[in-house]
Structure formats: C-alpha cells, structure tokens
C-alpha cells in the first residue's frame, strides 16, 4: 500500500522525493507550489489528521524547512511533508483551507521563527511578552546575549538609586 | 424583661459557638477519615480572627449590605428558633416567618455577589438558586406535613406537642423526617451537593471576591446556617431539647452523620442533584403529607 502511494505521488507530482527512513514512516520532500495540492491529495487518501507543523532552521543553506506531520486513522503510516522556504523573507501559503487546526501551529511558528503565512487571519504572539528582538528559535539568535541585555540590567530593590 | 434581653443576646451567641464548633469538628472528622491528623478543633475560630485582621476589598455599597443583610437574616431566624426552652420571638408569625426569613440568607449573598461583577459569582448564585429550588420542593412538603399534622404554624407549639418521647420522627410523620434527613446535605451545601461553591470549577462561586472580613463574615454565616438547618430538624422531628445539653447532643448526632456522608461522596452535577432531590425525598415527603392528612 505504501509503495502504491509512493508510486502515485511520484507520478502526479513530478519533482517530489519520497523516502521511507524507517517502517511506517514516509517523508515527502516537495516544493512550495506543490504543498497545497499534495496535502489535499493526502487528505483525500485518508490522512485526515494534521498532527503538528514544525520548523527547522538550516542556517548554512539559508532556508527554513517546514514539516507537516500527517497521520491516518486507517493505516499506521505517518507522513512528513517537508517544504523549504528561503530564510531572507520566509513566506508561505497557509493550509487552513485544508486543515483548519493549522491556524495555531502556524501562529506559533510565525512567532518563534518569523515565517509568514499568507492568508492566516491571526498571527499575533502566543507565548512571548513584549518581544522586540529576532524570533527566538532562529539559530542566529543569541539567547545568552539577550538574557544579559534584558534581565540583568533590571536592578534589585537593594540597588535602588 | 431582663430575661428577654438575655435571651436575645444568648441565642445568637450559642448558635455561633455551636456553628463554629461544628465547622471545626467537620474538618477534624474529615481529616481523620483521610487518615490525617487534622487541624485543631478551634481552627475555624482562628481563621475568622485572622480574616478580621485582613484588609478586605469592597466592590460597592451593596457588596457590604448584602452580606450584612444575610447575616442579620440568620440572626433573626435564630431568634425564632426555640432551643432548650429559649425562644426570644415566640409569637410573631411562627414557622412561616422562619421559612421566609430564611430567604434573606441566599438572597443577601446573591445581592452582595452580584455587585462583585464576576461571572464565577453569577454562575455560583445561579447554581445556588437552582439547587435551593431543588431542595425546597421536598422541604416545603415536609414543613407543610408537620404544620398540618400538628394544626399550627407556631414552632413552639410543635416542639411542645412532642414532649416526653413523642418525637415526630416516631410518629406518622416519620417519612417526612427521613425525607428531611435526605435533603440536609443539600441544605447545608455539603458534599455531594457542593456544586454551588465548587472551588475547582468556579473558584468557590459566590465567595470569589470575598477577602478579609467579608470572607470571615461569610464563614460565620455558614456556621449560622449549619446551626439553623440542623436545629430546625431537631425542633421539628427530634422533639427539641429540654436543656441545652440534650439539644446539643441531638444536633451533634445529626451533624456527625452528615459529615460522614460529606467526607466520602464525590460531587454531583446540578442535574444529578436535582434528579435526586426531586425523586426520593420528594416522594417520601409527598407520602408524608398524605399520611399526615389521613392519620391526624
């Protein structure tokens, strides 16, 4: 069944690589433009569950890799759909039309990595308070520097004036 | 006249002492059932003393007034309740007035809480009023059966006609007595009927905004309401008390059995509580009314 799926995907979406790193795990590497059609296709195939969206910062390659984790209630197969976007102005179409629960995942990734999702109505911060720096999960964000800057300059009560 | 004034002072005082003692006792018993050591038995008193030394927050005039009204209502009810031969307001309306002044209690808290502008309070009060509608159905039937059995609305007469050992619980009214016993936890707000002030769901409901002396007063109010509910049961069904010791003993027996129920049951949802209250206690109370009409 898995092989069948692989064959069909490769047939329809030409520039998609399909791998099986381990049992019951399928990795699809595809292009930005193919993301929505592939997700739609997979959803039709029965992978109705979007479990999470995660993001990897490939700083040397200058790219963010967005990973969409799908699973199905019928088969034990897990699918990871990987898409890469440029690091300079990371922007990608939202998948809310297909999986509505993507809204919060996208909001989180926007907050922590700065990837912009076109069409997502609410990308306001979830966890951070009053954040003015680089998004904190980027690899070029120096957390120790930031801590020094932000927290250590706040005085103790004893140091008052 | 002097006796009268002493009675006026002594009865709320006794009620307060008994109520606070019962609060402490319930905490101790629950602790022992949990196999804990438990707080000292005067812990509620310590809490009240502490609370009176804390700065409370007030949301407005009605926030204070409602609470005071509720407490004043409790005191008036206590003045109407005969115990151990003390009944300061004997001839001023009887059981019906007690029933009505008992309205002050939830209503005062409800008004005070409403000013608090907190939805937790509103939900708590809504639950409180619905629950009270739930237990009022059997409660009113019980009271009516007692009143029509003894053909009087004066509670002193009811107590007097149970002199000797002719307690109403052992008379044809025993079904009503059992029904009253079954709704007592709901009237006291004890488990399994503590949905009103469920701390985990609605943060103690009507008491959310109470701090400092407000909370202290609401504890005192709770103590009073424990006294009122159980004293009413003792007066109506266990023949009152010849002296304060007997009266206290009867109350103690009733209260300890309530606490035993309280300490082992989980909380009921409101619908479950209503379904319970409108089924068995109501059926028993209904039969009680019919029996009281036939046998009288």
């Amino acid at each position, binding site marked *: 069944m898995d092989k069948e799926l692989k064959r069909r995907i490769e047939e329809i979406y030409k520039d998609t690589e399909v791998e099986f790193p381990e049992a019951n795990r399928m990795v699809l590497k595809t292009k930005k433009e193919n993301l929505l059609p592939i997700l739609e296709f997979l959803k039709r195939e029965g992978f109705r569950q979007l479990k999470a969206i995660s993001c990897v910062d490939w700083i040397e390659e200058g790219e963010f890799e967005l990973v969409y984790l799908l699973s199905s209630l019928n088969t034990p197969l897990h699918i990871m759909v990987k898409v890469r976007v440029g690091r300079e102005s990371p922007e990608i179409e939202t998948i809310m039309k297909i999986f509505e629960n993507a809204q919060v995942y996208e909001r989180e990734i926007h907050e922590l990595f700065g990837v912009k999702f076109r069409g997502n109505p609410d990308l306001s911060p979830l966890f951070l*308070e009053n954040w003015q720096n680089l998004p904190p999960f980027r690899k070029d964000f120096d957390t120790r520097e930031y801590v020094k800057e932000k927290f250590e300059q706040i005085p103790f*009560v004893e140091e008052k004036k | 006249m002097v006796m009268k004034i002493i009675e006026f002072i002594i009865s709320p005082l006794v009620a307060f002492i008994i109520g606070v003692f019962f609060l402490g006792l319930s905490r101790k018993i629950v602790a022992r059932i949990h196999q804990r*050591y438990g707080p000292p038995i005067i812990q509620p008193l310590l809490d009240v003393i502490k609370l009176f*030394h804390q*700065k*409370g927050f007030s949301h407005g005039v009605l926030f204070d007034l409602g609470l005071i009204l509720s407490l004043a209502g409790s005191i008036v009810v206590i003045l109407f309740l005969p115990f151990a031969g003390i009944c300061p307001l004997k001839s001023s309306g009887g059981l019906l007035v007690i029933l009505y002044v008992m309205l002050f209690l939830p209503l005062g808290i409800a008004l005070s809480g409403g000013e608090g502008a907190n939805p937790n309070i509103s939900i708590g009060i809504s639950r409180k009023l619905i629950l009270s509608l739930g237990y009022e159905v059997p409660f009113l039937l019980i009271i009516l059966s007692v009143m029509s059995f003894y053909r009087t609305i004066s509670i002193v007469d009811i107590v007097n006609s149970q002199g000797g050992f002719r307690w109403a619980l052992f008379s044809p009214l025993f079904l009503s007595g059992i029904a009253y016993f079954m709704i007592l936890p709901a009237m006291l707000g004890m488990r399994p009927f503590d949905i009103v002030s469920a701390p985990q769901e609605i943060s103690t409901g009507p008491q*959310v905004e109470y701090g400092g002396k407000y909370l202290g007063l609401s504890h005192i109010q709770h103590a009073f309401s424990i006294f009122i509910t159980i004293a009413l049961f003792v007066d109506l069904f266990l023949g009152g008390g010849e002296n304060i010791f007997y009266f206290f003993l009867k109350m103690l027996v009733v209260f300890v059995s309530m606490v035993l129920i309280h300490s082992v049951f989980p909380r009921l949802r409101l619908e479950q509580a209503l379904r319970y209250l409108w089924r068995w206690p109501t059926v028993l109370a209904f039969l009680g009314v019919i029996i009281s009409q036939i046998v009288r």
Partner: protein
Amino acid sequence: MDRKSIVKWIKEPGKMGHKYSLWAVYFCTGCGIIEIPPVITARWDAERFGVIPVATPRQANLFMITGYVSLKTLKAIIRTYEQMPEPKYTVAFGSCPINGGMYWDSYNTIKHIDKYIPIDGWIAGCMPRPEAIFIAVTKLWMMIDKGKADGYIRYRKNYKFYRRNQEKLFGKLPWPPLYPIEEEENG
C-alpha cells in the same frame, strides 16, 4: 509553638491569626507544584498547621511561587499578588525563582523573582522535599512573630520601583497601579 497560648491570642490576635491560619493561593507555576499535593493530603497533612489551599487570591494570605516563572506567568503572578489582601506573605520555591536555576540562560524565564515582587522566604533545592515546606512555614511563623515578614510593606514602599521593573519586561501594563505612584514620590 505558641499556638495554645491564650495570653498571646488576647494580646495580639491579628499577628497570631496570621501565623496560624496561612491560606495558600492555589497557583501552579512550574514543576514545584508536584510537591504540593502530598503536602496538603494525607501523607504530610499541612492542615494541622492551618495551611490550606484556597481557590482565589482574595481569600489567601500566603503565596507560594512553585518553580520556574516564565514571563507570561509572571504577569499572572503580579496580578494575583496585587489582588491578595494585606498582610500577605510570599515564599519562592525551588532554585529557579532564586536565580533562574537550570533556566539561567532562557530567553523567556525570569531569573530573579524578587526584582518584580517582594519575597519573604526562599526554599532552595531542585525540587525541595515536602518537609522543606513545613520548615519554611515554621520559619515564616518566626518571621511574622518578629515582624520580619514585611514583603507587602516593602512592596507598598517601593511600588514605583517594582512597577518600573515590571514595565521594563512587559511594556505598559493593562491594569492601573495598585498604589498611587505620584504620592509616593512626594512622601
């Protein structure tokens, strides 16, 4: 202790009341809250000391900050602390509130809680044992007795300072100041 000394109760009922009826606000911040259920239930039974958890800050006078504090939690902690009636006591629990603990270089976790709200006592350890809570409570009794548990007074006195520290983290806070700031400058 002197819980049973009637003379003291009559002399200074307020202080004795605060000592022996510590009501803790039920506020979970970090991993330390795991230690609280054994403390309040049958194994260690905090109720024998008069310590019980209550539902809202309005009813409480003891605030246990249990574990690391993220920025968002700090906002809630400040709000909760300001809603508690005076006198109020705070105990910081575990090493994270003291100096950040294992989160010393985290971008979103507070390093020193006492920069933002006053703390009366610290319990060190990662995590402290439940017994440590009782030691803290008895220490707190002594501090209240000697009048050293004065965090709320310090807060009122240095409110402008604390508020400024808080606003350095959060920008402008949505709620109005607890105490008037201008008056404090004059006096």
